[in-house]
């Protein structure tokens, strides 16, 4: 297990390095890169352009730029945002908190899929199972941005219940504002959890040790709790990590629809402003979070299930 963790850690670091290199050269080498972003502003004179190029380090030869960028990145310095004229880390930092709130709540929404999956599995083939399964299939086919818009038009437009934005700061107002985006963002996780738990429970039910438990006359309640649920729910832990990447993409859409001032909307603002240092910084942050998520999922699997042996 220890060796496995070390190997996965090394792999992750190499992966992050590869993605960093790839994205750096992608942005510096292609037309439409930072040069164009500066040039496209008609108010920028030749002198200002020269000053800006110096300031953002675009004058150095490419390999030097790359090495400088790598060294700075190692110290969490990803350069300055064009649009905000602030260090990228500071700009991102100021937007982390709202997205963190949203993400945490949507994890909670996603976990509601656990009881739903258990219900579906224990009612296999009956009405409630069919309803839950149909809803998960439809749920995967619905475009999330459209669902968000429709809810807004219905709820806040027509009835005026759940307003946009972040509210005035009182807890009640905060709750009113966050509930819809959190539910929407958590929907994908809810479906994933429901499906996963359903199939896990169904698989465990057919195991020999469950039949043994029943055969030796254990109370049905005990069989369900100690033998079926406990074994079926263990792998759920691993899903927590792998849900992270989907949450990142979802946050961009959800925050844009609900006007939520987090990192997702910051990303869209940076894209519209062609703020390449900021975009690159957020791409890297997203990649690192994704890699951490996968890493935790792999490790978690080994920790909770002693049957898993790593080579």
């Amino acid at each position, binding site marked *: 297990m220890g060796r496995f963790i070390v190997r996965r850690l090394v792999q992750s670091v190499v992966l992050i390095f*590869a993605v960093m290199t790839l*994205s750096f050269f992608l*942005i510096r080498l292609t037309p439409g890169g930072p040069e164009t972003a500066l040039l496209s502003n008609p108010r920028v004179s030749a002198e200002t352009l020269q000053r800006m190029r110096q300031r953002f380090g675009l004058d150095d030869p490419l390999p030097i730029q790359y090495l400088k960028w790598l060294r700075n990145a190692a110290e969490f310095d990803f350069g300055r945002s064009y649009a905000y004229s602030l260090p990228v880390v500071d700009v991102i930092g100021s937007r982390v908190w709202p997205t963190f709130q949203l993400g945490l709540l949507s994890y909670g929404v996603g976990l509601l899929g656990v009881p739903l999956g258990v219900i579906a599995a224990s009612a296999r083939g009956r009405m409630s199972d069919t309803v839950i399964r149909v809803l998960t299939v439809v749920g995967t*086919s619905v*475009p999330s941005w459209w669902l968000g818009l429709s809810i807004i038009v219905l709820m806040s437009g027509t009835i005026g219940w759940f307003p946009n934005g972040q509210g005035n700061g009182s807890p009640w107002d905060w709750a009113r504002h966050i509930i819809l985006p959190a539910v929407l963002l958590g929907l994908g996780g809810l479906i994933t959890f429901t499906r996963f738990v359903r199939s896990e429970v169904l698989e465990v039910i057919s195991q020999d040790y469950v039949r043994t438990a029943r055969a030796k006359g254990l109370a049905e309640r005990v069989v369900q709790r100690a033998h079926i649920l406990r074994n079926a729910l263990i792998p759920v832990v691993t899903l927590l990590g792998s849900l992270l990447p989907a949450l990142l993409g979802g946050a961009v*859409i959800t925050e844009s629809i609900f006007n939520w001032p987090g990192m997702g909307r910051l990303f869209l603002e940076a*894209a519209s402003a062609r703020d390449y240092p900021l975009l690159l910084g957020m791409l890297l942050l997203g990649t690192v979070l*994704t890699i951490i998520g996968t890493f935790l999922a792999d490790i978690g699997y080994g920790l909770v299930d002693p049957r898993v042996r790593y080579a």
Partner: protein
Amino acid sequence: MKGPPRSFLSSSLRRFVADRLSLAALILFVLILVITITAPLLARFVLSTSPDEFLRTPQGRIATLQAPGPGYLLGTDELGRDNLTRLLYAGQVSLTIGFLVAFVALAIGAPLGLVAGFYGGRTDDVVNALVQVVINIPTLFILIILSVMFSPSVIGLALIFGLFYWPSTTRQVRGLVLSLRNRDYVDAARVLGASDARILVRHILPNVISIVTVVAGFDVAAAILGESALSFLGFGVPVPLSSWGNMLSGSQDTFRSAPWLVYPPGLMILLTVLSVFLIADGLRDAFDPRVRA
């Protein structure tokens, strides 16, 4: 069983059609396909509109934001264009992207999976590393960045999508090839002196085609959803071309007062993606020799 033994393909198709849900999904999808392909004819001869035409009210003013009524069955948008006409034309763009992305993903993913599974070792490691890099980059982030940098056309957009949608094909194909390459009939072919290329094309590829078809189906659905999100955010299909996603990328205030603009594009995506999902799912069951009804 009566009659001559059926081939794998025809018995699979029989099983697919026998499943009522899959058949219904197929009929729905063909219907969507037909009205989308014939959109220019429908718009011209049935609705007598064109997607860029600004409609006028009886008083002669441009009919902006009209609720559904005679003359415009699904209402008009903020510029006075017929919503139904745009919806039909938008389908052409959305479906084209869906199929193109699946094609690109297959063209990249299937060969990589074949080679990785067949040769193993170093080749497999390299392919795996590529897969790891692609799946760990947040897709929506990189798609937005690339779209800002290149301002792609519809074809370009599909190519960019394809660059990030192939790993699922590679993984599935690789896994299958890994289990196929040591079968007796493959050994037999090798003993008879068949080259690697011949074994891959004649003996392995035919067994992989069914799984590739299923993955391609899921790719089409995922691509239509992905394109709609990107276009809605304003980084996808460039205006004035309309796709189901960018029909709503305008101002949010307009469609708050005009809910008839909100529902149709999303419903079309939902129905299309749902039918493609169900078809792919039905095909997976039909191809699976263990599920013989």
